[in-house]
C-alpha cells in the first residue's frame, strides 16, 4: 500500500481527463459519443514542420540537448518574440520545456516558498492551482463572472494582493472562457502591480494566435521595462501550430528566474525531446499564414456554436474573442429534472446527464472553479459541432 505524500493528496484529478475516460467507455459500449472536452486543435501538424522533424532524425539530432533548449530553438523563440510581440530577450532569458505546462511548473517550483500566495482569476485552467499547491504555495482564487466578461478587474486584483503574494497568473485568451484582455485592460492590471513591486506576473499566452474580431493581441511585458523585469511570458507551439503531441513550450523572463527554472528542469526531466525541438524551431521560423487560416476557421465555428447554444433553454452563452472554448452559463437549468429522473443540482450533474442522455462530452465549470457553467471545446469539425449543439438543445428542452 503506497503512502502518498501530503502534497500529492492535495492535487486534483484532471476533470477533463475523467470526462474523456467516461466518454471513451461509452464509445466502447457502442454509443455515438461526440467529445467536446479536449483542449487540442483538431488540425494536423503542418507538413513543413513534420518534414523538419524527420530530417532532424535523419541528421542524427537525437542526442541530449541543452537542458533549457537547443540554441536553434532559443533563437527562433527570441525572433518570434521580436517579430510578433516587439519584445527583446537575450538567449539566457529564454527557456524551453516539455510543453508550456512544464515551463509554468518549473516557475512555480523555482520560486514559491511554503505559504506564498498566487492570484489566479477564475475560471482558470485547473493546472494553475494544482501547480501552486504542488509547490507548497497557496492559490488565491478571484472569481470573474460572465458579467465581467470572465476577466479580472483592477479593483479585484488590488483586493486580492497581500504581503504574501508572489505571483499573479494571467491567461489571455483564456482557457476555459475564451476571454481575451484588451491592451488597456492589461495596462490597468499592471498599474495595480506597480504599487506592489515584489509581485511576479505570469502571462500564459498559449492561445495568442487564436484571437478573433480583429482584436489585437497584447501581453504585459510589452508595457515597460519595470513590468517586463518581473514578467514571465509563457507560450508554446501546441495551439498555434496544432503540435500538442510534440510537447514543446517556452518562456522568456528575467534571467535569475529563467536560471532557477533551468535547475528545476534539470531535476525533473532534463531537456525536451530533440526531435520535438527541431519541429518547434521549424514552426516558429517557417511560414505563418497557416496560423491565420486556422484562426479564421475557428472563428466561423465559434459563431455557429454561440448562436446554437443561445437557442438552448436555460443556457446563456457569451461570445468570447479568443481560444477555442465557450463557457456557457446554465443557471437556468438548475433545479430541473433530467430524462433519467435525476435533478440537475450542479454543473457537474448537468454534464454527466448530458453525456448519459445525449452522448455529448463537455467539462463542468466546477473543474475550472466557476459554477454553474460548462466548457465546450469547438476544436472539432463543423458537422460534429452542429450535431452536438442540436443534442444539447434537445437535452435542455427535455429538462423539466
Amino acid at each position, binding site marked *: 500500500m503506497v503512502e*502518498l505524500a501530503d502534497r500529492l493528496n492535495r492535487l486534483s484529478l484532471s476533470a477533463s481527463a475523467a470526462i474523456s475516460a467516461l466518454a471513451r467507455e461509452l464509445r466502447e459500449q457502442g454509443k455515438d459519443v461526440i467529445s467536446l472536452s479536449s483542449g487540442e486543435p483538431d488540425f494536423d501538424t503542418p507538413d513543413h514542420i513534420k518534414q523538419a522533424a524527420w530530417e532532424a532524425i535523419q541528421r542524427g539530432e537525437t542526442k541530449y540537448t541543452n537542458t533549457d533548449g537547443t540554441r536553434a530553438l532559443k533563437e527562433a523563440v527570441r525572433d518570434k518574440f521580436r517579430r510578433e510581440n516587439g519584445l527583446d530577450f537575450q538567449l539566457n532569458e529564454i527557456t524551453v520545456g516539455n510543453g508550456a505546462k512544464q515551463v509554468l511548473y518549473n516557475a512555480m517550483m523555482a520560486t514559491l516558498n511554503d505559504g506564498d500566495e498566487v492570484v489566479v482569476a477564475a475560471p482558470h485552467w485547473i493546472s494553475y492551482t494544482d501547480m501552486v499547491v504542488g509547490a507548497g504555495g497557496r492559490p488565491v482564487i478571484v472569481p470573474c463572472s460572465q458579467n465581467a466578461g470572465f476577466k479580472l478587474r483592477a479593483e479585484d486584483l488590488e483586493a486580492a494582493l497581500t504581503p504574501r503574494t508572489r505571483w499573479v497568473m494571467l491567461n489571455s485568451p483564456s482557457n476555459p472562457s475564451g476571454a481575451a484582455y484588451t491592451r488597456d485592460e492589461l495596462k490597468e492590471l499592471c498599474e495595480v502591480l506597480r504599487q506592489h513591486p515584489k509581485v511576479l506576473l505570469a502571462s500564459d499566452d498559449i492561445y495568442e494566435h487564436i484571437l478573433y474580431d480583429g482584436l489585437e493581441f497584447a501581453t504585459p511585458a510589452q508595457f515597460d521595462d519595470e513590468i517586463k523585469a518581473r514578467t514571465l511570458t509563457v507560450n508554446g507551439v501546441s495551439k498555434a501550430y496544432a503540435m500538442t*503531441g510534440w510537447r514543446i513550450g517556452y518562456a522568456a523572463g528575467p534571467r535569475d528566474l529563467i536560471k532557477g527554472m533551468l535547475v528545476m528542469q534539470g531535476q525533473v526531466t532534463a531537456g525536451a525531446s530533440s526531435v520535438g525541438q527541431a519541429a518547434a524551431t521549424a514552426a516558429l521560423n517557417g511560414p505563418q499564414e497557416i496560423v491565420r487560416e486556422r484562426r479564421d476557421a475557428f472563428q466561423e465555428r465559434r459563431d455557429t456554436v454561440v448562436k446554437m447554444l443561445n437557442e438552448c433553454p436555460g443556457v446563456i452563452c457569451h461570445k468570447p474573442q479568443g481560444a477555442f472554448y465557450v463557457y456557457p452559463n446554465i443557471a437556468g437549468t438548475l433545479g430541473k429534472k433530467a430524462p433519467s429522473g435525476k435533478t440537475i443540482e450542479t454543473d457537474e450533474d448537468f454534464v454527466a446527464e448530458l453525456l448519459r442522455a445525449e452522448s455529448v462530452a463537455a467539462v463542468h465549470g466546477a473543474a475550472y472553479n466557476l459554477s454553474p457553467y460548462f466548457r465546450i471545446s469547438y476544436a472539432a469539425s463543423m458537422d460534429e459541432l452542429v450535431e452536438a449543439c442540436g443534442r444539447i438543445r434537445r437535452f435542455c428542452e427535455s429538462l423539466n
Partner: protein
Amino acid sequence: MTIVSKKMQRIPSSPTAAMSDRARALKEKGQDVIRLSSGESDFDVEEFVEQAAIDAIKAHKTRPSAVAGSPDVRKAVQLKFKRDNGLDYDLDEIIVSNGGKQILYSALFATVDPGDEVIIPAPYWVSYPHMVTLADGEPVFVACDHNANFKLRPEQLEEAITPKTKWMILNTPSNPSGAVYTKAELEGIAEVLRRHPHVWVMCDDIYEHLIYDGAEHHCLAAVAPDLKDRIVTMNGMSKGFAMSGWRVGFAGAPKELVKAMVRLHSHSAMSMNVVSQEATAAGLNGDQSFLKRNAEDFRKRRDIVVAALDRCPGIHCHKPDGAFYVYPNIAGCIGKTAPSGKPIETDEDFVRELLDTEGVAVVHGGAFGLSPYFRVSYASALPELEEACRRIERFCTALK
C-alpha cells in the same frame, strides 16, 4: 530579493554541467580538450527505430497520448519486462515518461513527505539527492567504496534503515562506478527489506544492456517477487538504445503509485512526445541483437581504459562489470603538487588540474558522494580514449 525559493537554493547547479562548461571554455580558447565527462552513449540510434519515428510522423501520429503513454508503447514496455526480466506487469502498472529522470522525480515527489528518509548508496548518480531534497526528504548516504566493489552490503542497509525510511535507491549497473549486483547480492538486500515492510525500492536499471564478461542483469522485483508490490523498476531508452535525445524513460510499478505519478504528470508536464513513443515501441519490439554487439564494443573500450589507468602512478582502477564508466581511486595522488604548483588536496583539485594541464575533462568523485575518485565515461572513440589515458598517465607522472 532573490527570486528563487528556499527549496531551490538547496539544489546546487550540476557539477557535471560545470565541468562541461569549463571544458567548453578551454576549447573555445583553442585548447585541445578531450571530454570524458558526459553520460551519453556515442552510438547512433538504430535505423529501424528512426524509420519507425519518421513513418509515424508521416502517418500524422502526432496527437498527444494518454498521460501514462500510448497503449502501444505501454504494451511494448510490458513485453520488454516479460522478455528481458521475467517480470509481469499489467498495462496499468506501466508508465512512460520524459526520460528515466522523470520517473524518479515523480515517484519521489508523489510519496516523500518532509523528513522522510531515502537511502542512497554512494557513489551515486548526482541527481538522486537533489530529487529527494526537492521532495523535502532527507537523503541518507551509505558509503560503498572500491573494497566493497562499490556495492551496498546487507548489513549496511540494515543499519541505515530507520522508522522514517521511505525509499532506498538501487542502481545496477551503476553510474558512476559501473558496479553490477549479482543475483545473490540482490537476494541479500531483499532479505533485509523483508524485515522492513515500510521501505520501498527504486530500482534504476537504465544501464541494463551495458553489461560485460558474462555478468547478468537482475531486477530486484524478479529476484524477490514477494517485494514487487513496493518496487519501482525503472528503465529507459537513453543508454542501451542510445536514444538520449528522445527522452524516454519507463517503469513498472504498483498500480496505485502509477496512478499517483500520472496525477502529478498531468499537472507538471503531461504525456511525453508521441514521436518518441512510437520510436520506443519500435525499438522494444524490434530486433535486439545490436544490444549485444554494442556491449561487446564497450567491453573492449573498458578493458583498454582500465589497463591504461591502472598503470598511472597513484591511481588504482577497479574493473567494473557494467555501464560505460570507470571510477578510479586516486588516494595515491592526494597530497602531491600539480605542475601548476597547486597542491592536490581533493579529487576536485585533481580533475581541475588535469583539465587545465592536459585538457582531459572528467568528473570528480565528490560530485557522486564518494572521494577520492574520479569518473571516466568511456563512451568515446577508442583513439580518443587512448590519447586521454596517455595524458592522464603523463599528468599523474608529473605530480610531485
